[in-house]
C-alpha cells in the first residue's frame, strides 16, 4: 500500500485559503488502512473544516481513489457538487489526488484539487492499525531472489547491493541504531537457507533507467516505459 500521514491542519487550511465550499474525497484503500483517509477520517475532516468556517458540500470515499475504475463511478454522479465546490480536498496518496484532479478535468471542471496528506512510501502492514514498514522501492529490477527475500535497496539505508558497509554495530544500522542492519539480516537468512555463497557474486551497478520517472505501465503488454 501507499503509506500516508495527515498534514497539519494549519497547512491544510493554508491550502484551502480563499476557498469556502469544500468537497472532501477520501480513499477506502490504503488511506483507510493508514487511518488517514477512510470514511471515518473524511467525516472527521469535514467536522474540522466546518469548525473552521468552511462549508463542506460533499463527502465521498471511493474504494480506491487512485483507480479510475473505482473513483469515476463515485465522482461522476456528484460532478455537480464538484462543480459547485471552491476546492476539492483529497485525503489520499499523491496518486489519489492526481486521479481526482484528472477526473475533474475529464468532467470539464477547473476546480483546485488539494491534498490533506503526505505520501510516505510503499508500505506493508506488519501490525494492523499500528505499524507498517517500507519494503519496496519499485526499482523495476527486483533482486529479492538473490537476497533471501529481504530488499537491500529499501532496507539498507544506503541501498547497497554488494554487502554491508562497515558502520553497523551490534547488528544495528549506522544511520538508525534502532534498526537492524539489512545486510546482517540478509546474511543470517542466507545462512539459514544454506545459500551464503550466492552473496559472493558481484551484483554490479543497478540499472536505474528502469526506475527513471515518470514510468508508464502498459498493462496488457506487461511493458513499462519511461
Amino acid at each position, binding site marked *: 500500500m501507499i503509506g500516508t500521514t495527515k498534514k497539519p491542519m494549519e497547512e491544510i487550511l493554508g491550502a484551502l485559503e480563499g476557498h469556502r465550499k469544500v468537497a472532501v474525497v477520501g480513499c477506502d484503500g490504503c488511506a483507510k488502512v493508514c487511518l488517514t483517509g477512510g470514511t471515518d477520517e473524511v467525516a472527521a475532516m469535514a467536522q474540522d473544516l466546518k469548525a473552521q468556517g468552511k462549508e463542506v458540500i460533499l463527502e465521498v470515499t471511493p474504494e480506491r481513489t487512485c483507480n479510475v475504475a473505482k473513483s469515476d463511478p463515485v465522482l461522476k454522479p456528484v460532478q455537480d457538487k464538484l462543480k459547485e465546490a471552491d476546492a476539492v480536498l483529497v485525503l489520499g496518496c499523491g496518486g489519489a489526488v492526481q486521479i481526482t484532479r484528472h477526473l475533474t478535468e475529464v468532467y470539464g471542471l477547473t476546480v483546485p484539487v488539494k491534498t490533506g496528506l503526505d505520501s510516505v512510501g510503499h508500505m506493508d502492514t506488519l501490525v494492523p492499525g499500528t505499524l507498517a514498514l517500507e519494503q519496496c522501492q519499485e526499482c523495476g529490477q527486483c533482486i529479492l531472489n538473490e537476497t533471501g527475500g529481504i530488499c537491500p535497496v529499501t532496507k539498507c539505508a544506503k541501498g547497497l547491493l*554488494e*554487502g*554491508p558497509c*562497515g558502520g*553497523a554495530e551490534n547488528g544495528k544500522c549506522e*544511520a538508525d541504531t534502532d534498526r537492524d542492519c539489512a545486510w546482517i539480516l540478509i546474511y543470517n537468512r542466507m545462512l539459514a537457507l544454506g545459500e551464503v555463497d550466492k552473496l559472493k557474486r*558481484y551484483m*554490479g551497478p543497478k540499472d536505474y533507467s528502469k526506475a527513471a520517472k515518470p514510468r508508464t505501465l502498459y498493462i496488457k503488454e506487461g511493458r513499462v516505459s519511461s
Partner: protein
Amino acid sequence: MKLTELFAQKEFVITSEVGPVKGCVRSNGGPPPEFLQEALDIKDYVHAVNITDNQSAFMRLGPLAGSILLKQYGMDPIFQMTCRDRNRLALQSDLLSACSLGIDNVLCLTGDHMKLGDHKAAKQVFDIDSVQLLHIARGLNEGHDMVGHSLTKSTDLALGAAVNPNFDPLDLQLLKMEKKITAGAQFFQTQPVYDVKLYEDFARRTAGFGVPIMFGMVIIKSPKMAKFINANVTGITVPEWLIQEMESVPKEQYKAKATEITIRLLKDIAPLCQGIHFMPFGWSDIVPTVLAAIKP
C-alpha cells in the same frame, strides 16, 4: 608514488590522514593552509596522506582540491572517494581528473550516511557502492569506462579500500572484503581496532587474501574522546581498559599516556600487518616517537 609499488618493494607503509576544513583555503602565495600543517609536520615520516571526502557527511573542502594542495607541498595524496555524493558519471569523471592531475592513489569508500552529517536533508546518491567503484576504477585503469567505452588514455591509479575488523559477524565483512579484492582492491586500510586478539584473528583470517593491509590507528587523546567515539561512531569500540588507563593520569599527561598506549598496541599489531595508517586528529607530533619505538 603508488602505494602498490611500495608494497611490492616490501616496504612497511606508513600513511596519515587529514580532513579538509569547511572553507576555501586560497592562500595567494601565503603560508600553507592550516589543515595541511598536520600532515606537513610528519611529512618525512609518512609515505602518503589520505585526504577525506566530506568526512562524516559534513560538507567541507573537496578531496580533489585537498589532494592537489598536498602534492603542491611535496606529499603523496591518497584521494578518498565516497559514493554518497556523486553518481557514476561524476565518480568516473573525478577518477579521470585525479589521475590527470597527478594523483596516484585512491581509496574507494561507500561513505557515511547523510544522517550523521550537517546536511541531513540532502538527497543521498549511493548510485554505486564501494565494491562497484573499485570494479569501475579498475576498468578505467584498463582503458574503458563502466559501459565499455574506450578511454583516450587509461588511468594509472593504485586502488585502496577499507575494511572493519570490528564488524560482527566478521564472516560477512570478510565476504565483502573478498568482493572488493576481486573487484580491484590492491590494498586495505582498516578501521581502528583496540583489541589485539580481535586483530590477530582478523589478520589470521585474511592472511591468505594476498593483499596488503594497513592497520588503522586513531590515537585516543582523552577519555572524553574515547567515550565520544563509543557513543557516536558506529563500528568502532574503544575498550574500557584504555579509557581507564587514560583516566589514571592527569590531563597534562594524556599525550604521554596516549603515546605509550599507541606504542604498546602497535608493537603487538605491526608484525601482523603491512603498514600503519595513522589518524592522529591533531597529535601528529607523536607519530615519529611511535614509529621510532616500534621499529623492528
